[in-house]
């Protein structure tokens, strides 16, 4: 065991994976000599050379499109999009190509591709550097979308993403890159994709969340402790495919649900979770389902971002509201 940040956990996983598998290569903007703008790939080029750690021209569509070409010919590319907000440039290659080639060819062509991208606000970055766009990909059959919130999940889920035979979008909460440290197993291990984790068990209300909001939710739950409310916190970890079983089981037990995420509200992951619960747990429900999310606007200028993102106060208030029922 070793204490690591998310950045270190991902870097360690990439290093270990590349050591064992010659078919893995990393490509992206500034990931080589510079080690990535967040230094996530620091030292990889030194260790594995320019053949396996490739600095690309600034062309997101080409990064994903070429990676699709590499993946379909027996290699395992790990592409980095510098900020998730830049992935709009590559939407066809992500959704029209990577996600669909298996289905288009009935499995005769597959795309074992990992696309890594940092996302989310909280670091006062310029426009399009803070977007949480996961819902776009939740709605893109053929893709998997993984969103860890802790160093150990980041390491294990990345290993699982690398092994996965289908394209996986691996989203890294940039706000948490260095703020959380925890003991992480040094040996290579996998955390299964598609399995949520129950961060804390509780009896009265379920909070489903993922990514940077997990931290905010924990703070809110600490605030609620004195009020006799027993909260179950579920960290989805993977948003596509969603772990139906875990959330249904939890809400069947508690009868109350609050979903928390940073992305905009309408048509977001929370909407999908609410629909799944409405379809499956209606008769267990004591109260309406509530969502605490970013507002339905583009991510705002940095001076107001803290207020735009879900806050402890908004989460506490949502829980109190459902508990009144």
């Amino acid at each position, binding site marked *: 065991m070793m204490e690591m940040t998310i950045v270190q956990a991902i870097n360690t996983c990439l290093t270990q994976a590349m050591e064992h598998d010659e078919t893995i*290569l990393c490509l992206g903007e500034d990931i080589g000599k510079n080690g990535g703008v967040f230094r996530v790939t620091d030292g990889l080029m030194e260790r594995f050379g320019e*053949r396996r750690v*490739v600095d*690309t*021209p600034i*062309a997101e*569509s*080409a990064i*994903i*499109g*070429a*990676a*699709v*070409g*590499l*993946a*379909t*010919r*027996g*290699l395992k*590319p790990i592409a980095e999009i510098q900020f998730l907000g830049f992935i709009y*440039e590559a939407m*066809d*290659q992500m959704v*029209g*190509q990577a996600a669909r*080639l*298996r*289905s*288009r*060819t*009935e*499995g*005769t*062509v*597959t795309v074992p591709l990992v696309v890594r991208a940092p996302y989310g606000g909280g670091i006062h970055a310029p426009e399009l550097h803070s977007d949480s766009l996961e819902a776009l990909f939740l709605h893109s*059959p*053929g893709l*998997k979308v993984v969103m860890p919130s802790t160093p150990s999940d980041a390491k294990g889920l990345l290993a699982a993403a690398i092994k*996965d*035979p*289908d394209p996986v979008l691996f989203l890294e909460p940039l706000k948490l890159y260095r703020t959380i440290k925890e003991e992480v197993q040094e040996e290579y291990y996998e955390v299964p994709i*598609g399995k949520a984790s129950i961060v804390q068990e509780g009896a009265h209300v379920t909070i489903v969340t993922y990514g940077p909001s997990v931290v905010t939710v924990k703070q809110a739950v600490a605030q609620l402790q004195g009020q006799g409310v027993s909260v179950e916190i579920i960290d989805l970890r993977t948003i*596509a*495919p*969603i*772990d*139906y*079983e875990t959330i249904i089981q939890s809400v069947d037990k508690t009868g109350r649900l609050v979903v928390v995420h940073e992305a905009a509200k309408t048509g977001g992951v929370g909407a999908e979770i609410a629909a799944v619960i409405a379809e499956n747990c209606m008769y267990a429900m004591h109260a309406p389902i509530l969502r605490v999310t970013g507002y339905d606007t583009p991510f705002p200028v940095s001076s107001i971002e803290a207020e735009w993102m879900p806050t402890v106060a908004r989460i506490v208030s949502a829980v109190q509201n459902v508990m009144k029922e």
Partner: protein
Amino acid sequence: MWLNQSCLEGGVEMWLNQSCLKIDTASVLKEDCSLSETFFKRTATDEQCIEMYKHMVQGRIFDGIALKFQRQGKIKTYPPIRGQEAAQVGSAYALNSNDWIYPSYRDIAASFVHGMPIDKFFCYTMGKMAGQHLTDLSIFPIQIVIGAQFLHAVGGAWASKYKGEDSVSVAYMGDGGTSEGDFHEALNFAGVYKLPVVFFIQNNQWAISNPIHKQTASQSIAQKALAYGITGIRVDGNDVLAVYEATKLAIEKAKNGEPVLIEAVTFRQGPHTTADDPTKYRDQAEVEQWLTNDPIERMKKFIITTGLWDERQEEELLNDCEEIVLKAYEKALTIEKTTIPKVLRATYETMPQNLVRQLQQRGEV
């Protein structure tokens, strides 16, 4: 003949513009269909000439039948290839079987030459997923989005280079595709990484209803290669021998880390697809003009005047080609149909919970 950075040396003043370039259209067959060695030394043997001719005729016969079948409701939307047989056949014929092609929806004759069974294409137009099981033939799945396949070819070529395989990736596209970002990003990547890739553009003058002069202000598509530090060539796309020789040379260059952009100048004689009516936007006079330069007629004249071919053989060939197409259609009819459960199962390697539930809701358990 070859456009590369050296074309800009010396003669360029301060402003770089089209006048800095002299662009020829390379050919082998002269106007009277006799041979010229101005651009290429002919390397195709007599047998290869006949074989290419047969492929072109096969393509055209297929095209005619497919069009009729679509009107009869036997197949769905179909994009005719008529007029582009030389460009498709000449290029694909220059490849080895371990070279990969990355076709768009219209590159049917090229795919046939590279080994795609005709029944697969029928399946494709009949909505059977078996039509896209092609990878054992080094044929990438047919691309519908304009230009996306250029980046896949770049990735494929990159994989060949990474693994040290002796294989070139050839990407097909029309003139309309050269306006897409993916085209430019692909050429740029190919130049930066010196990949074994050939970009083959069939400039058929029309992108549905948009003519080439509204597609680009460049005097040629070939010259676009220069901007990315790769090599370009403009070739008479209705001259199968010229296309063949140009592609063969381009493949050699690509294998040596010199990617090539080929512009084959040709003409789409038919509609964009069976859902299109070109008389709405195109002058018949232009069509008539191009019909006098038909790729199959030109090659036929050449092989007949050189004594390689006669009308009796021609008749036999037409009958054979038709029989092959009709048999392929019969075969396509017997190939298993696509079903909803099959599609649900084909989306991921392992069905996730949501798809399992959707399958269960159909009562498929």
